[in-house]
């Protein structure tokens, strides 16, 4: 165990190497570590934010979907209502048209019947006159009794 100058040489080199580490090694290393720590923290925060935003977007999409469903249901029900209305209108129109045709037909029938009755009346009168003429030919002159026949025809 020789204690000699080596001790102080070692002390000196110790000081030099500690100084070197303190000046050139430690600060850049800790700086890099701190920076990376900050970067990782930022990244994690961003990821968290992303997850949160995704949740919000999902919620918004769900709401939109819900709204769209409601709207489509509304549209369908409105269309159904309109369709029913159109059908009802068509029915009403058809009924009215039917009735109109019916009345027209009835009026025509009445007219025809009147006409026929008129014709029948005239025919009957003629027949009656004809009959009477045949009877009277034997007994009376047509000219002499013409006003009687006419008044008779009018009465029928």
């Amino acid at each position, binding site marked *: 165990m020789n*204690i000699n100058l*080596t001790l102080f040489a070692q002390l000196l*080199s110790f000081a030099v*190497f500690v100084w070197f580490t303190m000046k050139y*090694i430690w*600060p850049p290393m800790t700086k890099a570590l701190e920076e990376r720590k900050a970067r990782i923290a930022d990244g994690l925060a961003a990821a968290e934010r992303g997850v949160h935003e995704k949740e919000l977007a999902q919620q918004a999409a769900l709401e939109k979907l819900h709204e769209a469903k409601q709207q489509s249901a509304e549209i369908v029900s409105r269309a159904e209502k309109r369709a029913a209305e159109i059908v009802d209108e068509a029915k009403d129109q058809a009924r009215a048209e039917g009735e109109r045709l019916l009345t027209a037909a009835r009026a025509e029938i009445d007219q025809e019947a009147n006409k026929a009755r008129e014709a029948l009346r005239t025919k009957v009168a003629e027949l009656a006159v004809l009959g009477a003429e045949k009877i009277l030919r034997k007994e009376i002159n047509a000219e002499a009794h013409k006003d009687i026949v006419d008044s008779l025809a009018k009465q029928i």
Partner: protein
Amino acid sequence: MASGDTITSSEYIQHHLTNLTFGRLPDGSWGIAHSAAEAKAMGFWALHLDSLFWSVGLAALFSYFFYKAAQNATAGVPGKLQNFVEMMVDFVEDSVKGSFSGRNPLIAPLALTVFCWVFLMNLMDLVPVDLIPRIAAEIGIGHMKIVPTTDPNITFGLALGVFALIIYYSIKIKGVGGFVHELTGMPFQTENVALKPVFFVINLFLEGVNLIAKPISLSLRLFGNLYAGEMIFILIALMYGSGIVMGLFGGALQFVWAVFHVLVITLQAFIFMTLTIVYLDMAHNEH
């Protein structure tokens, strides 16, 4: 054995425990000592060239790699070297945070240097004891101790550095008065004026021992562990000269001891670092 049958076991051990010493030779000229006795005769004004070479070389090695990593350090994806250095920095920073309560930008770099340096110097213990001295002998260097921490000069040098910092920060933080009070006002306290000088002396003695014990225990613990480990490696190496059975047994022993020593060298480096932090923390705190 390294040098054939011409030397005895004790000579072999002695040879392994002698540093390559540069100093004043008996004839008055300056040069390298040729024997342990000559090295001893050089007294204080001598340098252990081998200890200093390995110690400074290893520190330069670790400084170089760490410097390279620090220069290229990015906050992005780290490379392998940066990863390793970051691991060390993180480990040291955790240790400092755990033991050091104050704020001092010197402590962490100091702890990092101490840990890496002591670890590397201890690591040289795992190199087979005869390998490098044999190579050195081939190129004409008579003595070569490659484990700097088995040289008390080295461990005392480190401990003295720590001790200087303890004194410096004790005075800087507490002032001269505070430091003196710490040395003399505790643990015995009294209001009696007559007793005060007596307690003063007792306290100074107790606290002085306490203070001096710090660097001595720090350096002797490291030195003792590594010296003993080295000694056992040397003794195991002796077995290689005693036939094939002993040689094989020695090889197995060396393997087992080396595996165990991996733990010891790491632990000793860690203890040195932790105690450095703790002592400096004590220097920063009033108690």
